[in-house]
C-alpha cells in the first residue's frame, strides 16, 4: 500500500509562495537613491527587504506545519525504540538488497 504523504514540493501554492517571496527578497524594485529615505537610521528599502525576509520565515513555518506530513512517525514512533533495537534497522538494510 502506498503511504499517505504530503510534501511541500508537490504543492503548487508552496511553489507560488516561494517564487513570490524570492522575488521580493531581491532588491530590484527600488530607486537607485532609495537610501535617502530612512526610518530610525535604517533605509526604508532595507526594512522592506527585512519585512519580506520575515514573511519568508513565516511562510516557511506555515509550509512546515501544514504541507509536510509523511508516515514516518506512525511507523517508527518518536524514535525511542530505534536506539536500542538494531534488528529493526538491520532489517531495513537487508530490504535494500531487493
Amino acid at each position, binding site marked *: 500500500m502506498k503511504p499517505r504523504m504530503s510534501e511541500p514540493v508537490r504543492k503548487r501554492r508552496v511553489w507560488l509562495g516561494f517564487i513570490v517571496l524570492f522575488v521580493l527578497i531581491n532588491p530590484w524594485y527600488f530607486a537607485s537613491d532609495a537610501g535617502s529615505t530612512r526610518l530610525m537610521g535604517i533605509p526604508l528599502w532595507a526594512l522592506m527587504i527585512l519585512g519580506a525576509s520575515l514573511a519568508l520565515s513565516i511562510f516557511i513555518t506555515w509550509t512546515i506545519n501544514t504541507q509536510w506530513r*509523511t508516515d514516518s512517525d506512525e511507523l517508527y514512533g518518536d524514535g525511542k525504540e530505534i536506539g536500542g533495537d538494531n534488528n529493526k534497522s538491520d532489517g531495513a538494510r537487508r530490504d535494500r538488497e531487493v
Partner: protein
Amino acid sequence: MEVELAFSGWSGIFVLVLYGVLMLGVGVFAFLRNRGMRESLDEYYLGGRGLGVMVLFFTFFATQYSGNTVIGYPPTAYRMGYQYLVSVPFFIMIIMVYLFFAPRLYALGRRFSLLTPVDWIELRFRSKSVSILAAILMLYGLANYLLEQFVAIGQGVSGLTGGTIPYQVGVIFFIVIMVAYSWLGGMRSVAYTDTIQGLALLFGVFTLLIGSLYYFGGLPSAAEYMQANSPEKLNPPDGAGLTRWFSLLVLVGIGAAIYPHAVQRIFSAKSEATLKRSFIRMAYMPFLTAGVVFMVGIIGIAAFPGLSTADSEQLVGMMANALANQNAFFYWAMVLLFGGVIAAIVSTADSVLLTFSSIISNDLYGRYIKPDASEYQKVLAGKLVGLVAVVILIVIAWYPPATLYQIFVLKFEVLIQVAPALILGLYWTRLNARAVFIGMLAGAVMAGVFTFMGYRPLGVYSGLWGLLLNTSICVAGTWLAGADATSREHARKVIGFEY
C-alpha cells in the same frame, strides 16, 4: 580571520582551557551514558537517530553558523554597507531549500536506515561510479573545509591570547580535544557540544551588539556618516551588485542545505515532528545572528571610519578591545565572545570530521573494501582514516603552502555538484545514472577551472556555473536516453516507498 586582541592574554588562556575541559567532559559524559550500547554506525554517526528538538536545532545552528559569521561578516558589512543585508535572507534560503528535499529524504532515511548522503545516492542509482565520484567530491570538499577551520582555530587562539599561545599550539590543543570527544561519543558528543557552543556564540554576539550600540552610537549616526561620506552604502544594490545578491541567495541556499554534514543531520532526527520544529526555529535565527552581526558592522562604519580593506578585517577585534576597556563586565563578555567564536569554529570542524569519517566507514570501507566487516570494524576504520586525514591537514595547516593554496580553496564549489544526484534523484525516476555521473564530473571540473582562473562570468560564482552545466547535462542526458526499465522500476519502488 586573524584578529589580534590586545586586552586579552591570560584570561583568554583561562577561558580556552576551561572550554577545552568542558568539551572533554561532554565527551566523557556521552561515552559513559551510552556505554551499554554496542558500537554501531547508527549509534556513532547519528546518535542512534535519537536527537531531540533542542539538540538537533543547536547542531544545525552550530553547523551553519561558524566563527566566520561573527568575525568575517561585520567587516564585509563595514565595506559594503546595506548591500550586505543579503546575509539575512540567504540564511533563510537554506531552510527554504531544505523543504524541497528534506521531507522525503527523512522518510527514506528512516525506512532504509540511510547513514550518509552517499548512502542515499547508492540506494537510488545502484551505480558504483556515481557513488564513488560523489564520495570523492564530498571527501575532497570536506577535507578542505576542515583545513580552513584548522587554520581559523590557530589564528583565533593566537589572536585571543594576544599571541601568548602560538598559532601551532592552538591548532594542536583544540584538534586533540576535538578528536578525543568525537571518538568518545560520536554524534552525541558533537551535538551536545554544539549546543554549548551555540549558546556561547549567541551570548557573545548579543553582548557585542548591546555594547556597540551603547558605546559607539546607534544606526542613525552611522546612517548620517554614510550619507555624508559614502552614500552608495545606504542605497540598494544595482547592476553587478544585484547579480551578486541574487547569486549569493542561490549559492548559499543550495550549497549550505546540501552540505553532507547538513544532510546527515536530517537522518539523525528523533522524529519527523522533531525535525520540523528544529527547522521552524532555524527559519528565524538569521535575524538573531546574521542580522545582529550585520548591525555591528554598520555601527563600525561611523565608529571606526576610513579603514582600509586589510584593516577593516580587524574590525571585531577593535570593537572588542574598545568595549573590554570600559568595565569588567564587558571585559569578560568579550573574552567569552572570542571563546565562543573559537567554539563555533571547533563545532563546525567536529561535524565535518564526523561526516568525513562516516563516508569512509560506510560508503568506501563498508561497501567496497570490506563489506563483511562488523559495524565496530567499520566505525574503527572511519575513525582511523579520519585521524590520518586530520594529521595530514595539520601538516598542511602548519605552514599553509602559498603556491598550492588554490587547491585547498575548493569546497562549496565541489560539494554543490552533488545536488542534482541528491535532489533530482528523489523525484525523477527516469533520471539516468550515466548522465548524473557525467554532469557531476563536468560541473566539478568547470567549477574548479573557473575558480583557479578567477573567472566569474556575469559576476556569478564559479560553483553556480558548474551547477548549471551539471544540471543541464543531467536533464538533457536523461531526455536523450532515460534510465533503462529495470532501473526505472527500482527507482519507482524506492521513491514510491514500496519496498
